[in-house]
């Protein structure tokens, strides 16, 4: 029988420290934070404590998943770690995670350096490798500490970002279940809209790179900090997301009515509310999880997926559409028929 692949289990971990609404009110003012809450829909955000890296969230999530579902570590033959805040420039942090997780030597491991689209890209790679017979059971991990990349006085980004990571088990399922397909895209002309300009090899870090500048709105940053052109990213999202959803559904001769759950990259509630309206999705067919979490970059989709799954919003047989979009500019969407053999999300630990 021909096969397919699907997400079989998932887990996530968030930063231990809460950067609260009140703290940011004191830093940026009452009016600013009212706008952030009303606009982005983010009240508090979970950030990493000093010394914790994105890979640590991925590791914790993976260990929870492996232990809860009693996964044989020797059976994992593919590890993909998605991050834009790696432990080191080299080796790939996936190799470090390979050691920490005690995986078998006959296991491919590599990083995917993308942001908000990373999870869908990684699923497409895992799916492709499984369908080609190169792998059979994959751990797709995500993890970032983007809160560390921003200047503390950059009001445009500080209130938005949270830190966290996730783990997903991807494995073989029967042909009539699992991934129906993927649609991936890039617009490199937008690469400057969300970027850390200095510190790589194009603009090596020098003292000048750390010089702080203040923009017209009073936001402070240096070339070594994350810069985001919010309006440009917003404009990109409200164009690309509806087009991609329409295109992916059309490729598979489906309509929005036939999709049981839409899971969007959790960037900004105002944007998501508009996308839901524009694509004409009933609100009960989507899920939001960012008010007390923040935008965890590429981990938002596996995190919102796991939260929805824990709340029984995802059941075997349902058709789920996931779409990530952002830095690059890059985007990816997938349609998946949830498998009967899914092991389930790792539940929250008891209070």
């Amino acid at each position, binding site marked *: 029988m021909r096969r397919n692949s699907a997400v079989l289990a998932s887990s996530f971990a968030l930063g231990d420290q809460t950067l609260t609404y009140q703290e940011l009110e004191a830093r940026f003012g009452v009016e600013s934070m009212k706008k952030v809450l009303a*606009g982005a829909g983010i009240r508090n955000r979970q950030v990493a404590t000093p010394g914790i890296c994105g890979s640590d969230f991925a590791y914790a999530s993976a260990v929870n998943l492996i232990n809860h579902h009693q996964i044989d570590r020797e059976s994992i033959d593919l590890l993909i770690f998605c991050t834009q805040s790696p432990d080191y420039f080299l080796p790939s942090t996936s190799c470090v995670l390979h050691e920490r997780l005690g995986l078998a030597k006959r296991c491919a491991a590599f990083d995917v350096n993308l942001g908000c689209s990373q999870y869908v890209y990684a699923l497409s790679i895992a799916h492709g490798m499984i369908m080609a017979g190169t792998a059979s059971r994959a751990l797709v991990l995500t993890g970032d500490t983007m809160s560390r990349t921003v200047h503390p006085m950059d009001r445009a980004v500080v209130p938005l970002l949270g830190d966290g990571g996730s783990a997903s088990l991807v494995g073989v399922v029967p042909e009539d279940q699992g991934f129906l397909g993927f649609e991936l895209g890039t617009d490199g002309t937008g690469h400057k809209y969300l970027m850390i300009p200095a510190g790589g090899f194009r603009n090596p870090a020098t003292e000048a790179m750390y010089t702080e500048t203040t923009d017209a709105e009073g936001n402070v940053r240096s070339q070594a900090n994350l810069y985001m052109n919010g*309006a440009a990213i917003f*404009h990109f999202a*409200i*164009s690309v997301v509806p087009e991609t959803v329409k295109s992916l559904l059309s490729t598979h001769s489906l309509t929005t009515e036939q999709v049981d759950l839409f899971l969007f990259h959790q960037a900004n509630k*105002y944007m998501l509310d*508009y996308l839901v309206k524009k694509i004409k999705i009933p609100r009960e067919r989507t899920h939001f999880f960012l008010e007390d979490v923040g935008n965890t970059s590429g981990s938002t989709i596996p995190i919102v997926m796991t939260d929805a799954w824990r709340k029984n919003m995802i059941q075997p047989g349902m058709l789920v559409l996931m779409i990530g979009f952002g830095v690059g500019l890059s985007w990816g969407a997938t349609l998946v028929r949830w498998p009967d053999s899914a092991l389930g999300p790792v539940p929250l630990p008891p209070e």
Partner: protein
Amino acid sequence: MTKEQFRAEFAEILDVSPDELGPETILTGFSTWDSVTYLAVMVMIDDKVGITVRPDAIAGAETFNDILNAVAERLES
């Protein structure tokens, strides 16, 4: 959508009266004209006028007329 309807929608986003929006009104004169407002304007234009305006057309607008020019061809006179 007519020009007057557009003026009313734009005024509502800025939390001002439509009468305060003349062709040469300088937008930076309003305390509510900021990068968060740009997003609301983009959504309003996308939703109500039916076009997606480049963000620099909004962020770079000096007067209300500059905004109107970005959407003029899609408005009824």
